[in-house]
């Protein structure tokens, strides 16, 4: 059984008298330890897919399970509990809590786990070390650069040791150099910490770092050959 399983998933939105169905009976399997990148034209439902997998949005039809848990069956409160332990979410714009320091932002998810304060401290320090921000522990988000903020966001997403981490255009608002740092970081997280990653991106070069590349087009997933040479932008 795959770590993430989507079966027959449908999701549509109604705006006025118009109905858009970005996801129309889609199936998808992601194995544990995979690093999957997902590309596709704007408005095809990539973000929607991540939101459904993380349970912050609801499917209209079909089912999603992650690590054997039927995400589509859980109540809102249970979903939150489940996310705290099993899912990390990396936003395009980091979404850090402005009143909390780097350390406190990363610590936040660990407060929801049953950990001793020593264990908690260790987790946070490890996560900060992984993203190379140990020396910025006491800085507030407003005192960090965009790349640093994104790295804090990543540390926050992995600190609870989730089964899956989803990332919605994690490099979307960064310059090329910073973006490259983040790419290296994500690759390391996947290879060294064995984190299963699902990343949405518009950048083919970013997509190329993944071990498996998918294209979402007209409501269907298309596997891209990893060996296919990429168009340079």
């Amino acid at each position: 059984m795959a770590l993430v399983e989507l079966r027959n998933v449908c999701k549509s939105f109604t705006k006025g008298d118009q109905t858009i169905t970005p996801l129309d009976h889609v199936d998808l399997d992601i194995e544990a330890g995979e690093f999957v990148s997902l590309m596709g034209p704007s408005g095809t439902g990539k973000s929607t897919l991540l939101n459904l997998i993380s349970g912050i949005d609801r499917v209209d039809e079909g089912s999603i399970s992650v690590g054997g848990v039927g995400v589509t069956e859980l109540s809102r409160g249970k979903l939150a509990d489940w996310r705290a332990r099993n899912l990390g979410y990396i936003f395009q714009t980091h979404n850090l809590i402005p009143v909390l320091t780097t350390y406190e932002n990363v610590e936040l998810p660990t407060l929801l786990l049953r950990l001793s304060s020593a264990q908690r401290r260790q987790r946070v320090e490890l996560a900060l070390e992984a993203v190379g921000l140990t020396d910025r522990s006491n800085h507030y988000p407003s005192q960090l650069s965009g790349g640093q903020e994104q790295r804090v966001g990543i540390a926050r997403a992995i600190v609870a040791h989730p089964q899956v981490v989803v990332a919605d255009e994690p490099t979307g608002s960064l310059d090329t150099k910073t973006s490259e740092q983040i790419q290296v970081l994500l690759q390391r997280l996947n290879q060294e910490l064995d984190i299963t990653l699902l990343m949405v991106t518009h950048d083919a070069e970013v997509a190329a770092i993944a071990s498996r590349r998918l294209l979402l087009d007209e409501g269907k997933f298309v596997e891209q050959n990893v060996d296919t040479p990429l168009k340079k932008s």
Partner: protein
Amino acid sequence: MIKYVIKTLWRHRTRTFLTVSGAAVAMFVFCFVGSVQEGLNRLSNGEDANRSLIVFQENRFCPTSSRLPQDYANQIGKIDGVAEVMPIQVWTNNCRASLDIVVFNGADPEKIQQNRPLQLVEGNWQEFESRRDAAIVGKNVATRRGISRGDQFSIGNISVNVAGIFESNVPAEENLIYTNLNFLQYTQGLDSAGLVTQHEVMLQNNADPDRVAREIDQALRAGPVATTTRRKGAFQASTLADLVDLIGFAHWLGFACVGLVLTLVATTTVMSVEDRMKEYAVLQTIGIRPLRTLRLVLTESTLLCLVGGVAGTGLALLALSLGGFAIGAEGSTIAFRPSFDLLVYGVVVSLGLGVVSGLVPAIQAARVPIVKALNQP
């Protein structure tokens, strides 16, 4: 998580400070009104209120107009159920409602010491008994008028030598000045030799106050002046009737304060939460339950109310204990005193208001549409 709440409040410290100050002012007034209310309740329900009777001239209200023969005391003393009678001459500087009323009670010093719950904090009883123009002064009056032992205190035609300052567990007592009965009777302008304003009747333990009151009035009907006898509590409540109405009205002021705190804190919390809907969506994406989100907001509003409320209550109690405030009319006074009950009441009301005022924004935050809020810029 409490750190998050406190830091959030600190981030908007101007707004927080203004809200807390507003809550403090309102709770200050609330406690002040509460203390007036308490003073009134003590007068009509206190221990003292039902175990002694006041015999007054029929259809008279102001102490200057009630003139009873002093020797009525002998007749009253014979009635079954009466433990003791204390003839009292009352003098007041103001028969109408006033915030700075001075009331003299002239009675036999020995009886005062026996029957009134007074403790001298300065001076001694011997001195009070030995000098004809000696007086002992209640702590409240002393504070208000800046009187200390050894002073010569004059008001109107009366001039007394202060032999002591007393405290009492009956706060209204602390608004009185006690002198010798004789001294007050012979004060120029009162011309009350052989006459007193009222007789205070101490009852035996098991005597029915209303029966004794009826019997007193019946027995004295034959005398030169008819009387009305009431329980002390009822007597004071009726002499203060106008004030009682006013205080009833002040009660509404208390409610208005509660409403004020409620809207103030609710507004601040709603503003704070609406500004940060995206933050709550992020928190829930991280794994914070809706219920916990609710608690975070309630903690925020409760902190605002509690800090403001405790400050306001504390200041009110401080002002009450230092100010020696009292309001009086026709020789009866209501003391505004700080009390432990008032403190508990202030804190509990603040706590309750904090929770209630946070309820609506808390529900908003808990039910935030996560995806929609995350997509906000």
